[in-house]
């Protein structure tokens, strides 16, 4: 089948039980999206599907057919970072960084729906993403920065 990833049509072989995350990571070598739990509980695998942040570990790749998938690799354009990435870099958010792609994709998804979220809305939208290093308040700050930019 064909998958539209980061604006490019990519051909992949599909199996019944292949998740979008597995297809991205193992077939297309887009390893920015991470495996964290496989149960949609941690958000490390978050990508945008037609502009909406989803847990790619819980999406059968079949159901992503004919939809636009954006991964962390697709945010940077011609060497220019996405404003959300710029903000995360400026706030120097991360420790181990394993949750970073999922956090950033969730934040991009939020800001596409709501360009100027309140702190409460940010927390509500991000609550499904886990950072065990505990950088949550810095992430909130970075999203506020990105909203201002």
């Amino acid at each position: 089948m064909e998958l539209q990833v980061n604006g490019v049509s990519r051909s992949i072989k599909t199996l019944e039980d292949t998740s979008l995350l597995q297809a991205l990571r193992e077939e297309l070598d887009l390893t920015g999206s991470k495996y964290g739990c496989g149960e949609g509980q941690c958000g490390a695998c978050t990508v945008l599907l037609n502009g909406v942040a989803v847990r790619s570990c819980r999406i059968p790749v079949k159901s992503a057919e004919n939809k636009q998938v954006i991964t962390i690799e697709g945010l940077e354009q011609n060497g220019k970072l996405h404003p959300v990435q710029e903000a995360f870099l400026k706030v120097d958010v991360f420790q181990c960084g394993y949750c970073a792609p999922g956090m950033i994709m969730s934040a991009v998804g939020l800001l596409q729906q709501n360009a100027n979220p309140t702190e409460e809305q940010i927390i509500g939208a991000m609550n499904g993403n886990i950072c065990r290093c505990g950088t949550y308040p810095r992430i909130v700050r970075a999203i506020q920065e990105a909203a201002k930019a």
Partner: protein
Amino acid sequence: MNHDTAAPQPQRSETDPQDQFKQSRRNFLKLLGGGIAVSFVLQDAFAFLPDAEEVTSPLVVNPEQVGGWLHIGKDNVVTVYTGKVEVGQNIRTSLAQVVAEELRVSVHSINMVMGDTDLVPYDAGTFGSRSTPVMGPQLRRAAATARGMLLELAAQEWKVEKSTLRLADGHVLNTASNKRLSYGQLAKGTKLLQAVANDAALTPTEQWTIAGTSVPKVNGRDIITGRHTYVSDMKLPGMLHAKILRPPAFGATLASVELAAARAVPGVVVVHEGNFVGVAAPDRAAANKALAAIKPAWHTTSQPSRSEIFDFLKKNASTPRSGGRGSSKKGSLETGMAAAAKTLRSTYHIDYIAHAPMEPRAAVAQWENDKLTLWTGTQRPFGVQDDLAKEFKIDKSQVRVIMPDTGSAYGGKHSGEAALEAARLAKAAQKSVKLTWTREEEFTWAYFRPAGVIEVKSGVKVDGTLTAWEFHNYNSGPSGIETPYEVPHQQIQYHPVDSPLKQGSYRGLASTANIFAIESQMDDLASLVNMDPLAFRLKNLQEPRLRAVFEAAAKAFGWAKTKPGKNRGYGIGGGTEKGGFTATCAEVAINPKTGDVKVLRLTTAFECGAIINPEHLDNQILGAIVQGLGGALFEAVDFKDGKILNPLFGQYRVARFKDMPAMEIVQLNRKDLPSAGAGEAPIVGVAPAIRNAIAAAAGVRLKTLPLVPKGLQVAKS
């Protein structure tokens, strides 16, 4: 760290540090090539190296003092080799900062080679908050020595006195002639090796311009673009994917196993050795299919469950040796208790908890002839190298362990389970093999922060002076077991137990449990004598650094200046661990109808000597507070008869965005004191501060960790 870790460690074998050191030094000299190098040889040498292989100076090295070396190439690149590893504590940045400071170069001209056993000197591991206080000064001395060599070379080149030369921006300047030479130009064509000068003049803290500043994470851009390759992201040509057959319970043994169907899956390699059964296949789907096709029969044995764990720990405690780990005695308890106006006896129960690093264990193994290269996320690359060499009965020089910056650890990745499993399959398959543990495997087959029972008997005079302190810790460990308060009569004892669950290191080790018990007991004693909890602590506390953080946290929080509202309470707790001093004030709100406990505010004051990177220190303190919050409120590993009952994020609750209170961090910068690590200590005040705030709000003096996994039961009823 071995000597201060809680209880039985994940299996760890002995190694000969002298051999390790010689081997890694040989490797270093091989790759050295031209340029200026500073190595840790405890021999005063300014040795020209016609051939690096010929350097065979006898080495008498204390491996505790060895850990890094440094090279300046003709391309101006400064390369630092250290056995320390990056797991999110941002040590890659802070170690580069101290080297950049001493060499007067930009942090970006420094290349940090970390945790590669072929390239870096032997290092026991990254744990116990040792990188900053031990590795930091070593690298500073190495860099300062290199600075001296550069001055020497420039002085020879220009035939001038060294005093007329100055270093800046990677160049040596001749102040008389205004000429300048880059470090690379000076290093070019030379092959210089010098031992670290122990008396090398270090740049005083007050003059720091790079160290002491908030240099951003050096590989931050790779992180936010998803470009950084964690082990779980690696792919080698022709690589197979592995799955391991897991027993249904701990300690289960394989009675029989039917493997024919698994072997029939195309491209699959099956390994069965004793209780180990693993498969490797060209893709994950085939590996899963093969795993599912295996028909095992297991023998299981009855094992202690969570419901009986605290009785088990008490009953199975070994008789402590007097003077052993975590044991101390002063005065006479009898005298102390007799002198008390009030006495208090309490028992605290601490659950097992999981580290739950976001990146589960992962390993990639590759055999080339008899040489094994193994990429894995471990805090002990040399320990894993040793384990692999023993497992496959090969020399350590045949095993290279590489640790790319890893998706966190928190003390939970001292071991190399996935490495051993991947290497076994790769050897059988004669192809490279990747194994990534699932979340469930990580929650089940890694190891846990120990559970514990802590018993405290204490006595206090009417005026709030402590008279007696008896403290027994069963199983959770000796870290932080000493009371920081002045007590004339005390006895402290750690009682090891053979834990039913595999247990090991954790952020702050047992001090999360011990300081919870100490600070809860202190609060209850303050209440017995009707004293303010802070005033009571300060009355019995002399250590000025701990007093300073208590006072700083209280001031920032508004302790005694403001009063909590209805159904709200303030609490305080603190202590010292790994050279750091911390105090936390908490405000909680309790819903009397539902029993819900909400932590509204946490204010932490922290001091760890001279601060190397304020922003990253802030991040480490924050991380410790957030991790402490989860352990304080609701984290607990549930288990029954050798099975983990909550091995998923949907079942094991960790702190999330919505759990975040308003957090304020106060850093006390003691430029006059050596820098200590900060990844662990700030966790210890969080749980007792919250517990004491709940006591103030609801009058309920909780004695368990976690405190309120299901809300405050008493409030509900």
